[in-house]
Protein backbone atom coordinates (compact mmCIF):
# COMPACT_ATOMS: atom_id res chain seq x y z
CA UNK A 1 0.00 0.00 0.00
CA UNK A 2 1.40 3.41 -0.78
CA UNK A 3 0.21 6.95 -0.21
CA UNK A 4 -0.22 9.56 -2.90
CA UNK A 5 -0.26 12.88 -1.05
CA UNK A 6 -2.48 15.48 -2.67
CA UNK A 7 -3.52 18.19 -0.19
CA UNK A 8 -5.71 19.44 -2.99
CA UNK A 9 -8.78 21.63 -2.66
CA UNK A 10 -11.74 19.78 -4.17
CA UNK A 11 -13.23 22.95 -5.63
CA UNK A 12 -9.88 24.21 -6.92
CA UNK A 13 -11.17 24.29 -10.51
CA UNK A 14 -14.15 26.42 -9.51
CA UNK A 15 -11.92 28.67 -7.40
CA UNK A 16 -9.55 29.19 -10.35
CA UNK A 17 -12.36 30.19 -12.68
CA UNK A 18 -13.83 32.41 -9.95
CA UNK A 19 -10.43 34.11 -9.67
CA UNK A 20 -10.48 34.71 -13.45
CA UNK A 21 -13.96 36.23 -13.15
CA UNK A 22 -12.84 38.39 -10.22
CA UNK A 23 -9.81 39.64 -12.14
CA UNK A 24 -11.99 40.54 -15.12
CA UNK A 25 -14.49 42.40 -12.92
CA UNK A 26 -11.67 44.35 -11.27
CA UNK A 27 -10.07 45.24 -14.59
CA UNK A 28 -13.39 46.46 -16.01
CA UNK A 29 -14.41 48.10 -12.70
CA UNK A 30 -17.64 46.11 -12.46
CA UNK A 31 -19.02 45.80 -8.92
CA UNK A 32 -20.51 42.31 -8.66
CA UNK A 33 -22.99 40.93 -6.12
CA UNK A 34 -23.83 37.29 -5.46
CA UNK A 35 -27.42 37.50 -4.15
CA UNK A 36 -28.33 34.53 -1.97
CA UNK A 37 -31.29 33.28 0.03
CA UNK A 38 -33.79 30.49 0.52
CA UNK A 39 -36.47 30.25 -2.19
CA UNK A 40 -39.10 32.96 -1.69
CA UNK A 41 -37.21 35.39 0.55
CA UNK A 42 -37.55 38.18 -1.99
CA UNK A 43 -34.35 38.26 -4.07
CA UNK A 44 -36.14 39.04 -7.33
CA UNK A 45 -38.42 41.58 -5.63
CA UNK A 46 -35.37 43.32 -4.16
CA UNK A 47 -33.80 43.35 -7.60
CA UNK A 48 -36.95 44.92 -9.03
CA UNK A 49 -36.91 47.62 -6.34
CA UNK A 50 -33.23 48.23 -7.10
CA UNK A 51 -33.69 48.53 -10.85
CA UNK A 52 -36.72 50.83 -10.48
CA UNK A 53 -34.62 53.26 -8.45
CA UNK A 54 -31.35 52.96 -10.31
CA UNK A 55 -29.87 56.24 -11.43
CA UNK A 56 -29.52 56.67 -15.18
CA UNK A 57 -25.76 56.89 -15.07
CA UNK A 58 -25.40 53.42 -13.51
CA UNK A 59 -25.26 50.60 -16.06
CA UNK A 60 -26.22 47.29 -14.51
CA UNK A 61 -26.73 43.76 -15.78
CA UNK A 62 -28.32 40.74 -14.10
CA UNK A 63 -27.64 37.01 -14.23
CA UNK A 64 -30.56 34.90 -13.03
CA UNK A 65 -30.01 31.35 -11.74
CA UNK A 66 -32.97 28.99 -11.40
CA UNK A 67 -33.57 25.26 -11.53
CA UNK A 68 -36.35 25.77 -14.05
CA UNK A 69 -38.17 28.54 -15.96
CA UNK A 70 -37.08 32.00 -17.01
CA UNK A 71 -39.82 33.68 -14.98
CA UNK A 72 -37.33 35.71 -12.97
CA UNK A 73 -35.49 36.91 -16.07
CA UNK A 74 -38.84 37.95 -17.57
CA UNK A 75 -39.56 40.06 -14.48
CA UNK A 76 -36.17 41.75 -14.77
CA UNK A 77 -36.40 42.25 -18.52
CA UNK A 78 -39.20 44.83 -17.95
CA UNK A 79 -36.54 47.21 -16.63
CA UNK A 80 -34.70 47.29 -19.98
CA UNK A 81 -31.38 46.10 -18.67
CA UNK A 82 -29.29 43.22 -19.99
CA UNK A 83 -30.31 39.97 -18.30
CA UNK A 84 -29.26 36.36 -18.82
CA UNK A 85 -31.17 33.39 -17.36
CA UNK A 86 -29.16 30.31 -16.40
CA UNK A 87 -31.34 27.23 -16.01
CA UNK A 88 -29.54 24.56 -14.01
CA UNK A 89 -31.98 21.67 -14.64
CA UNK A 90 -31.57 20.40 -11.10
CA UNK A 91 -28.30 22.02 -10.07
CA UNK A 92 -28.85 23.65 -6.70
CA UNK A 93 -26.25 26.38 -7.04
CA UNK A 94 -24.43 28.44 -9.64
CA UNK A 95 -20.74 27.81 -10.34
CA UNK A 96 -18.01 30.11 -11.61
CA UNK A 97 -17.92 28.46 -15.05
CA UNK A 98 -21.61 29.20 -15.61
CA UNK A 99 -21.01 32.85 -14.80
CA UNK A 100 -17.98 32.99 -17.07
CA UNK A 101 -20.04 31.52 -19.90
CA UNK A 102 -22.81 34.08 -19.31
CA UNK A 103 -20.47 37.08 -19.44
CA UNK A 104 -20.17 36.75 -23.21
CA UNK A 105 -23.75 38.05 -23.46
CA UNK A 106 -22.85 41.45 -22.00
CA UNK A 107 -20.89 44.45 -23.18
CA UNK A 108 -18.55 44.49 -20.18
CA UNK A 109 -17.02 47.82 -21.15
CA UNK A 110 -20.39 49.46 -20.62
CA UNK A 111 -21.14 47.96 -17.19
CA UNK A 112 -20.75 49.48 -13.72
CA UNK A 113 -22.37 46.60 -11.83
CA UNK A 114 -23.54 43.01 -12.17
CA UNK A 115 -26.00 41.30 -9.85
CA UNK A 116 -26.08 37.52 -9.87
CA UNK A 117 -29.30 36.15 -8.39
CA UNK A 118 -28.26 32.68 -7.26
CA UNK A 119 -30.51 29.63 -7.05
CA UNK A 120 -32.71 29.79 -3.94
CA UNK A 121 -30.68 27.75 -1.46
CA UNK A 122 -28.97 28.63 1.83
CA UNK A 123 -26.66 25.61 1.78
CA UNK A 124 -24.71 24.84 -1.37
CA UNK A 125 -24.01 28.30 -2.86
CA UNK A 126 -21.89 29.12 0.22
CA UNK A 127 -19.22 26.75 -1.10
CA UNK A 128 -19.02 28.13 -4.65
CA UNK A 129 -17.12 31.32 -5.23
CA UNK A 130 -18.37 32.99 -8.41
CA UNK A 131 -15.79 35.80 -8.45
CA UNK A 132 -18.15 38.33 -6.93
CA UNK A 133 -17.14 41.51 -5.08
CA UNK A 134 -19.66 40.97 -2.27
CA UNK A 135 -22.06 38.27 -1.09
CA UNK A 136 -25.48 39.53 0.00
CA UNK A 137 -27.75 37.08 1.86
CA UNK A 138 -31.45 37.66 2.36
CA UNK A 139 -33.70 36.21 4.99
CA UNK A 140 -37.32 37.20 5.42
CA UNK A 141 -39.36 37.68 8.56
CA UNK A 142 -41.47 34.66 7.65
CA UNK A 143 -38.48 32.33 7.94
CA UNK A 144 -37.47 32.43 11.57
CA UNK A 145 -34.90 34.46 13.46
CA UNK A 146 -32.67 31.41 13.98
CA UNK A 147 -31.76 31.14 10.30
CA UNK A 148 -28.14 32.34 10.76
CA UNK A 149 -27.52 29.63 13.36
CA UNK A 150 -29.04 26.93 11.17
CA UNK A 151 -26.99 27.89 8.11
CA UNK A 152 -23.74 29.20 9.60
CA UNK A 153 -21.57 28.66 6.52
CA UNK A 154 -23.73 30.96 4.40
CA UNK A 155 -23.87 33.76 6.96
CA UNK A 156 -20.19 33.42 7.78
CA UNK A 157 -19.12 34.05 4.18
CA UNK A 158 -21.60 36.87 3.49
CA UNK A 159 -20.85 40.58 3.65
CA UNK A 160 -24.41 41.91 3.94
CA UNK A 161 -27.56 40.42 5.44
CA UNK A 162 -30.93 41.80 4.43
CA UNK A 163 -33.94 41.11 6.64
CA UNK A 164 -36.81 41.37 4.14
CA UNK A 165 -40.61 41.43 4.45
CA UNK A 166 -40.44 43.75 7.47
CA UNK A 167 -44.05 44.70 6.61
CA UNK A 168 -45.14 41.25 7.87
CA UNK A 169 -43.51 41.59 11.29
CA UNK A 170 -46.82 41.90 13.16
CA UNK A 171 -48.03 38.58 11.75
CA UNK A 172 -45.01 36.39 12.52
CA UNK A 173 -42.95 35.28 15.52
CA UNK A 174 -39.78 36.88 14.24
CA UNK A 175 -37.67 38.92 16.63
CA UNK A 176 -35.40 41.32 14.76
CA UNK A 177 -33.01 41.79 17.72
CA UNK A 178 -32.62 38.02 18.10
CA UNK A 179 -32.04 37.57 14.37
CA UNK A 180 -29.32 40.22 14.45
CA UNK A 181 -27.69 38.74 17.55
CA UNK A 182 -27.65 35.31 15.90
CA UNK A 183 -26.18 36.77 12.73
CA UNK A 184 -23.46 38.75 14.54
CA UNK A 185 -22.57 35.62 16.51
CA UNK A 186 -21.72 33.86 13.24
CA UNK A 187 -20.26 36.92 11.51
CA UNK A 188 -19.51 39.99 13.63
CA UNK A 189 -18.64 42.01 10.50
CA UNK A 190 -22.02 41.60 8.76
CA UNK A 191 -23.78 44.75 7.59
CA UNK A 192 -27.49 44.28 8.30
CA UNK A 193 -30.28 46.13 6.49
CA UNK A 194 -34.02 45.75 7.24
CA UNK A 195 -36.22 46.06 4.18
CA UNK A 196 -39.69 45.73 2.80
CA UNK A 197 -40.14 45.55 -0.96
CA UNK A 198 -43.83 46.29 -0.37
CA UNK A 199 -43.54 49.48 1.67
CA UNK A 200 -40.08 50.58 0.53
CA UNK A 201 -38.65 50.43 4.07
CA UNK A 202 -34.86 50.23 4.03
CA UNK A 203 -34.58 50.31 0.25
CA UNK A 204 -32.89 53.74 0.34
CA UNK A 205 -30.32 52.36 2.78
CA UNK A 206 -29.72 49.42 0.45
CA UNK A 207 -29.37 51.74 -2.58
CA UNK A 208 -26.92 53.98 -0.69
CA UNK A 209 -24.77 50.98 0.15
CA UNK A 210 -24.92 49.84 -3.48
CA UNK A 211 -23.94 53.26 -4.86
CA UNK A 212 -21.06 53.53 -2.40
CA UNK A 213 -19.76 50.11 -3.44
CA UNK A 214 -20.07 50.92 -7.15
CA UNK A 215 -18.22 54.20 -6.57
CA UNK A 216 -15.40 52.44 -4.68
CA UNK A 217 -14.95 49.78 -7.38
Amino acid at each position, binding site marked *: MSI*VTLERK*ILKKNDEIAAENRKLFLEREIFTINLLSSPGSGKTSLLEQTLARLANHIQIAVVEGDVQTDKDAQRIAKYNIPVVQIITNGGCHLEAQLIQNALGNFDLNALNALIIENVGNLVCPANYDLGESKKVVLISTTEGDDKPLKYPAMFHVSDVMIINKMDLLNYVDFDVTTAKENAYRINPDLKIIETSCRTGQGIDQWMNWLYTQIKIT
Partner: protein
Amino acid sequence: MHEMSIAQSIFEIVQETLAKEDGVQLKEVVLEIGELVAVVPDSLQFCYTVLTEQTPYQGSKLTINIIPLKGMCKTCGHCFRIEKMWFSCPRCDSTDLDIMQGQELKISHLEVT
Protein backbone atom coordinates in the same frame (compact mmCIF):
# COMPACT_ATOMS: atom_id res chain seq x y z
CA MET B 1 -27.69 17.98 -4.65
CA HIS B 2 -24.25 19.60 -4.50
CA GLU B 3 -22.64 16.52 -2.98
CA MET B 4 -22.87 15.07 -6.49
CA SER B 5 -21.02 18.11 -7.86
CA ILE B 6 -18.36 17.69 -5.18
CA ALA B 7 -18.11 13.94 -5.80
CA GLN B 8 -17.68 14.70 -9.50
CA SER B 9 -14.80 17.07 -8.70
CA ILE B 10 -13.20 14.39 -6.49
CA PHE B 11 -13.56 11.86 -9.29
CA GLU B 12 -11.92 14.19 -11.81
CA ILE B 13 -8.99 14.93 -9.48
CA VAL B 14 -8.49 11.20 -8.82
CA GLN B 15 -8.58 10.47 -12.56
CA GLU B 16 -6.11 13.26 -13.28
CA THR B 17 -3.72 12.10 -10.53
CA LEU B 18 -3.79 8.40 -11.31
CA ALA B 19 -3.55 8.87 -15.07
CA LYS B 20 0.15 9.48 -14.46
CA GLU B 21 0.56 6.29 -12.38
CA ASP B 22 0.48 3.03 -14.35
CA GLY B 23 -0.90 -0.17 -12.89
CA VAL B 24 -1.97 1.23 -9.51
CA GLN B 25 -5.25 0.32 -7.93
CA LEU B 26 -7.08 2.93 -5.90
CA LYS B 27 -8.02 1.70 -2.43
CA GLU B 28 -9.01 4.81 -0.55
CA VAL B 29 -9.57 8.54 -0.98
CA VAL B 30 -9.09 10.49 2.25
CA LEU B 31 -10.86 13.83 2.55
CA GLU B 32 -10.63 16.64 5.07
CA ILE B 33 -13.89 18.54 5.41
CA GLY B 34 -14.18 21.43 7.84
CA GLU B 35 -16.99 21.69 10.34
CA LEU B 36 -18.19 24.93 8.76
CA VAL B 37 -18.52 23.44 5.28
CA ALA B 38 -22.07 22.46 4.45
CA VAL B 39 -21.51 18.94 3.08
CA VAL B 40 -23.40 15.86 4.24
CA PRO B 41 -20.88 12.97 4.55
CA ASP B 42 -23.43 10.19 3.88
CA SER B 43 -24.67 11.92 0.73
CA LEU B 44 -21.12 12.43 -0.47
CA GLN B 45 -20.34 8.73 0.15
CA PHE B 46 -23.40 7.73 -1.82
CA CYS B 47 -22.56 10.01 -4.75
CA TYR B 48 -18.96 8.80 -4.84
CA THR B 49 -20.09 5.16 -4.91
CA VAL B 50 -22.48 5.89 -7.77
CA LEU B 51 -19.85 7.76 -9.78
CA THR B 52 -17.16 5.11 -9.38
CA GLU B 53 -19.40 2.19 -10.37
CA GLN B 54 -18.11 0.45 -13.49
CA THR B 55 -14.93 2.50 -13.46
CA PRO B 56 -11.40 1.41 -12.43
CA TYR B 57 -12.13 3.06 -9.06
CA GLN B 58 -15.15 0.91 -8.21
CA GLY B 59 -14.88 -0.46 -4.72
CA SER B 60 -12.52 2.26 -3.49
CA LYS B 61 -13.33 3.71 -0.11
CA LEU B 62 -14.06 7.37 0.64
CA THR B 63 -12.92 8.38 4.12
CA ILE B 64 -14.13 11.72 5.43
CA ASN B 65 -12.26 13.35 8.31
CA ILE B 66 -14.21 16.24 9.81
CA ILE B 67 -11.92 19.07 10.87
CA PRO B 68 -13.14 21.00 13.95
CA LEU B 69 -13.47 24.77 13.85
CA LYS B 70 -10.59 26.54 15.57
CA GLY B 71 -9.85 30.23 15.82
CA MET B 72 -7.10 32.51 16.97
CA CYS B 73 -7.93 35.78 18.64
CA LYS B 74 -6.07 38.68 17.00
CA THR B 75 -6.56 40.78 20.14
CA CYS B 76 -5.11 38.51 22.85
CA GLY B 77 -3.53 35.68 20.83
CA HIS B 78 -5.66 32.94 22.42
CA CYS B 79 -6.19 29.82 20.26
CA PHE B 80 -9.46 28.04 20.89
CA ARG B 81 -12.08 25.62 19.64
CA ILE B 82 -15.05 27.51 18.20
CA GLU B 83 -18.02 25.92 19.96
CA LYS B 84 -21.66 26.21 18.92
CA MET B 85 -20.77 28.73 16.21
CA TRP B 86 -19.72 31.45 18.66
CA PHE B 87 -17.19 33.41 16.64
CA SER B 88 -15.78 35.33 19.57
CA CYS B 89 -12.78 34.84 21.88
CA PRO B 90 -13.74 33.02 25.10
CA ARG B 91 -10.93 34.78 26.92
CA CYS B 92 -11.41 38.44 25.95
CA ASP B 93 -14.73 38.47 23.97
CA SER B 94 -13.06 39.98 20.92
CA THR B 95 -14.65 39.16 17.57
CA ASP B 96 -11.44 39.92 15.68
CA LEU B 97 -10.47 36.36 14.83
CA ASP B 98 -8.52 34.32 12.33
CA ILE B 99 -10.13 30.99 11.47
CA MET B 100 -7.24 28.52 11.77
CA GLN B 101 -9.12 25.42 10.65
CA GLY B 102 -12.63 24.17 9.95
CA GLN B 103 -13.17 25.54 6.45
CA GLU B 104 -11.36 22.84 4.50
CA LEU B 105 -12.83 20.95 1.56
CA LYS B 106 -9.89 18.97 0.27
CA ILE B 107 -8.42 15.64 -0.66
CA SER B 108 -5.66 14.86 1.81
CA HIS B 109 -4.23 11.79 0.08
CA LEU B 110 -4.98 8.61 -1.85
CA GLU B 111 -4.09 5.08 -0.81
CA VAL B 112 -3.13 2.86 -3.71
CA THR B 113 -1.58 -0.55 -4.30
